[in-house]
């Protein structure tokens, strides 16, 4: 029944084709520059979508279609581009936006974020942002809840210096690395960073398959997000691309409980459980001082080699006729 529900949820929401949204957004956006806002307070929330399996399929469909498959979709329906302050406001008011309703009278269980450890794996322009998330499950029904029915959702706001390839992510979804993945915002894969807007990656991960639980009630989720560096603005060697902190959510579906159309939003104290150091990616950048000499030598060598070819051709064709 759970599967049946999920099917409806996913299926009906596909109406809003991801492609269409991406295109609309990338067309509407204009070239802007954004400061990477690092030290802004970042909210971690865990969302519980308490789903009913007893409800009739029709009501189920009706309900789930109201929400989006991707949380970030709702944001981009209202805003054209990613601005940190707007996005944080959006996360704060996620309840009032109708994504889910708080069930304060019935807290099923409280997931607590123990630690997030993040680092970049690899060198060069193609790296993996690895996030290791440890969550403790507390509450009366925590033990009853099968881990398989929960999904961890990570919303990563990317700095403008990097991008995620939506097609590569789709490939990873097909291979079962993630349950779902989407890139929203500026998805032009080719522009240098100073000509592009920021994008948001939303990763969904079923907790049953790719998580490991060391001790009881504790879960560890590892997410490896492949990223690519854009060409950096000119500078003197390297341009620093700094990552903020991700927004984390959890969505669960219960079996046998008929709490129709409710979900739970649980904010967690930020900062306290944080062990992650700042993640910085150094992207090599073109050196401004080179501009003059590079242009001069480039054009000169093009002209010289063109002249060489032209004179050889004329000389040779003259030769072959005079023989």
């Amino acid at each position, binding site marked *: 029944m759970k599967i049946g529900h999920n099917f409806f949820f996913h299926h009906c929401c596909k109406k809003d084709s991801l492609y269409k949204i*991406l295109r609309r957004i990338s067309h509407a956006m204009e070239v802007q520059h954004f400061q990477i806002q690092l030290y802004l307070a970042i909210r971690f929330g865990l969302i519980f979508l308490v789903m009913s399996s007893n409800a009739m399929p029709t009501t189920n469909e009706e309900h789930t279609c109201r929400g989006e498959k991707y949380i970030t979709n709702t944001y981009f329906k209202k805003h054209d581009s990613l601005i940190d302050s707007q996005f944080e406001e959006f996360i704060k008011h996620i309840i009032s936006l109708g994504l889910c309703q708080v069930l304060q009278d019935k807290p099923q269980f409280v997931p607590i974020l123990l630690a997030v450890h993040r680092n970049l794996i690899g060198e060069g*322009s193609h790296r993996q942002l690895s996030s290791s998330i440890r969550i403790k499950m507390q509450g009366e029904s925590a033990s009853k809840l099968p881990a398989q029915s929960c999904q961890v959702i990570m919303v990563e706001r990317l700095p403008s210096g990097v991008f995620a390839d939506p*097609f590569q992510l789709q490939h990873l979804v097909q291979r079962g690395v993630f349950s779902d993945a989407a890139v929203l915002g500026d998805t032009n894969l080719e522009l240098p960073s100073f000509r592009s807007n920021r994008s948001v990656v939303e990763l969904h991960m079923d907790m049953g398959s790719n998580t490991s639980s060391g001790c009881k009630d504790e879960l560890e989720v590892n997410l490896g997000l492949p990223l690519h560096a854009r*060409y950096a603005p000119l500078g003197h060697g390297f341009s620093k691309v700094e990552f903020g902190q991700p927004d984390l959510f959890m969505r669960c579906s219960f079996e046998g409980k008929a709490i129709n159309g409710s979900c739970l939003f649980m904010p967690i104290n930020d900062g306290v459980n944080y062990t992650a150091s700042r993640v910085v990616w150094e992207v*090599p950048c*073109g050196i401004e001082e080179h501009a003059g000499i590079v242009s001069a030598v480039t054009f000169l060598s093009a002209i010289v080699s063109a002249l060489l070819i032209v004179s050889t051709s004329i000389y040779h064709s003259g030769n072959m006729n005079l023989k």
Partner: protein
Amino acid sequence: MLGGIVGGFDVEMAKIIVQSLLIFSAILRVFLIFYGQWLDSHLEVRYTDVDYLVFSDAAALMATGKSPYERSTYRYSPLIAFLLMPNSFLHQLWGKFLFSAADLLVGLFIHTILKLRGVPENLCTYSTMAWLFNPFTFTIGTRGNCEPIICAMILWIIICLMNDQMLQASFWYGLVVHLRIYPIIYALPIIFILDPLHFQPGKKTVILYWSSEKSMSSWGSRTSKTTDLRYGWSTLTSMFTWRRLMFGIISGSIFFIVTGLCFYLYGWDFLHEALLYHLTRVDPRHNFSIYFYHIYLHYDHDFSSVEKLISFLPQFIVQLVLIFLFARDLPFCFFLQTLAFVAFNKVVTAQYFVWFFCLLPLILPWSNIELKWKGLACIFLWIGAQIHWLMWGYLLEFQGKNVFIQLWIASLLFLAVNTYVLINIILNHVYCPVFKQLNHTNSNKTMKHD
């Protein structure tokens, strides 16, 4: 020793050898396709070309009635996606088999053209092998790149022109320019070769045969000045012959009909992605072009028209000179034009090299370059310059080192090597027009003119 064996060639034997060559190449390509499939599932780095995944996605979209341009970075004509539609309902390897079949067809066409020009069987075979067993080319098709189809079309156009099938040639030419814009550089030499001195009503065209003397001095002395004047005269007086006009009109209409149809179906998306993108492409990311670093360093401001002109002029002048001097030796002219076009282009990627690799076997029988050692030197210099570039490219892209300036110098070196190879090929080429000039009608006029 080789000569002895070669001398014993007869027609039957030659047929068998060409057939077995093609069969062996086919087996090699089928093996590579399946080996690539295995590599893809076992390695992180894909054997399959990224573009193949793009084609497949676009074809799948088309199969469901959507626009292939919903797949971002699909930058080709919808016809390519149309050809690859079986990828989504037959098998995902369909496209690779299609491209590899086109690749084999190129081998067959090379053989056909050389036979038409009277090249001895053994030289035909060696030249065909230079395509079929060129590691640059057989990997391109099996990795799923569409270029072999373009190459096959270009060679088929040459065959049609040689067989005096002007209508077919113009049809395919219009189509190939629609598919990939670069063959537009062949327009002028084709117009030149449709000369009334080669094509006269009621007369068969005569194709000049390959001569073993390795020097066309006979041709040179007999026709030197006279021909040039006559050629120039005929070019001026009869620039607009019926044949030339027909070629222009037919290929132009095919181009506009197909492009218009695609525009009608897919709108501005098609025009922007498949045509305008390629015409206006400036890529600041590293590629073999000498211009990449200049473009990156100036990307934040728009290029002035003077800069655009300066970067356009060398390419344009080289094209014009090559066309005016060598158009009558059509395959040679095509080859030089393509090599020079790629070398001076603002964006150069490895897949562009196939464009001239398919023409290289067509000029080998007329080249005096001895494989030992000048030929080998050219080959190794060219490959060496590329590997040198790739090394810096690797340090930049996969090690994150700031080596932009070194990479740019490597691009300059690559241009230098391309120029060196091009000059060597020109100097050691025995110039041989494709068609014999038919003198009778114009002889009186020419004498007077003399």
